[in-house]
């Protein structure tokens, strides 16, 4: 088997209706995996994603809606993903929210929502998926952190904390699960063309681009390619790592 061939592998990608999650799901499908899409609710964008990917990969795309920040729903989602192919090999924790606010102006609701969706979801899904992966002594968990989680940024106190927390969770899970054949890694995207940056002004956009050594914005596909590497047997001896996908961005 070619190491990048994911035929007969099963993946769950959270937050996969658009952006990095959608691109990741598409990339894993291209490599032959069976993929379960997930979003909090069956939104129009999730329906569209499902329909589009099913048309390209009939029989290998499924969707399970549910809130990955809710441990009860997580059990249903992960079990449902496992039951589809009677295996779960790849978990991509991508679901996340971004709420920018300066210190002193951050609402409690935004703190809780950001930590629930970005960080607690990773802990819940890891707990649920690790045992299922351990059955086959094989698995890859890929957590989507952020360059903000490594270096911080003005106006992103909570987001940065949540993404740094993901890195801590990744490092601990990697050490604990290695003996069971489950690898755990994180990626730290930089400035990527997603809905999260649509609100930025042209001035801010220009500043961000000028801070990137490669001189261009990242595409969701750039991130998805690294996820594919970490999901595949090409990275079979890689665990507990944080890989920046940022074109040489400096914050």
């Amino acid at each position, binding site marked *: 088997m070619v190491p990048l061939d994911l035929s007969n592998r099963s993946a769950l990608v959270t937050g996969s209706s658009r952006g990095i999650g959608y691109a990741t799901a598409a990339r894993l499908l291209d490599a032959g995996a069976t993929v379960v899409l997930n979003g909090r609710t069956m939104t129009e964008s999730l329906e569209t994603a499902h329909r589009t990917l099913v048309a390209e990969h009939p029989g290998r795309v499924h969707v399970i809606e549910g809130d990955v920040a809710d441990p009860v729903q997580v059990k249903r989602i992960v079990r449902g993903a496992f039951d589809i192919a009677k295996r779960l090999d790849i978990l991509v924790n991508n679901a996340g929210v971004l709420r920018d606010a300066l210190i002193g102006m951050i609402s409690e609701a935004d703190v809780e929502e950001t930590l629930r969706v970005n960080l607690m979801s990773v802990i819940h899904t890891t707990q649920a998926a690790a045992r299922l992966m351990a*059955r086959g002594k094989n698995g890859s968990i890929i957590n989507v952190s952020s360059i903000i989680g490594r270096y911080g940024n003005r106006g992103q106190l909570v987001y940065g904390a949540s993404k740094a927390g993901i890195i801590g969770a990744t490092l601990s899970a990697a050490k604990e699960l290695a003996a*069971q054949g489950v690898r755990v890694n994180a990626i730290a995207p930089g400035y990527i063309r997603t809905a999260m940056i649509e609100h930025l002004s042209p001035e801010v956009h220009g500043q961000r681009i000028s801070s990137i050594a490669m001189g261009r914005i990242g595409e969701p596909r750039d991130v998805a390619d690294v996820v594919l590497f970490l999901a595949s047997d090409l990275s079979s001896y890689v665990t507990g790592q944080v890989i920046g996908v940022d074109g040489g961005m400096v914050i």
Partner: protein
Amino acid sequence: MSVEKRLGNVFREVFELNDLPERSELIYNQFPKWNSLGHMSLVAAIETEFDCILETDDILAMSSFQRALEIVSRIHGPS
């Protein structure tokens, strides 16, 4: 095969035992190899054998063979 027999086979396989010892000896953190890592291997093996996902409360409560049998019987039924 009864749940008790199947569970015994799981214990034998996970802890690499030729024969199942007295139940009273099968106690978490007292029986050799049944430490926290062994416990997670046991949980994974039980879930595979009985095609279930155990609740966290049940995993924490599974402190002996007898307790494991009670939990699995409740989830799976007596046979």
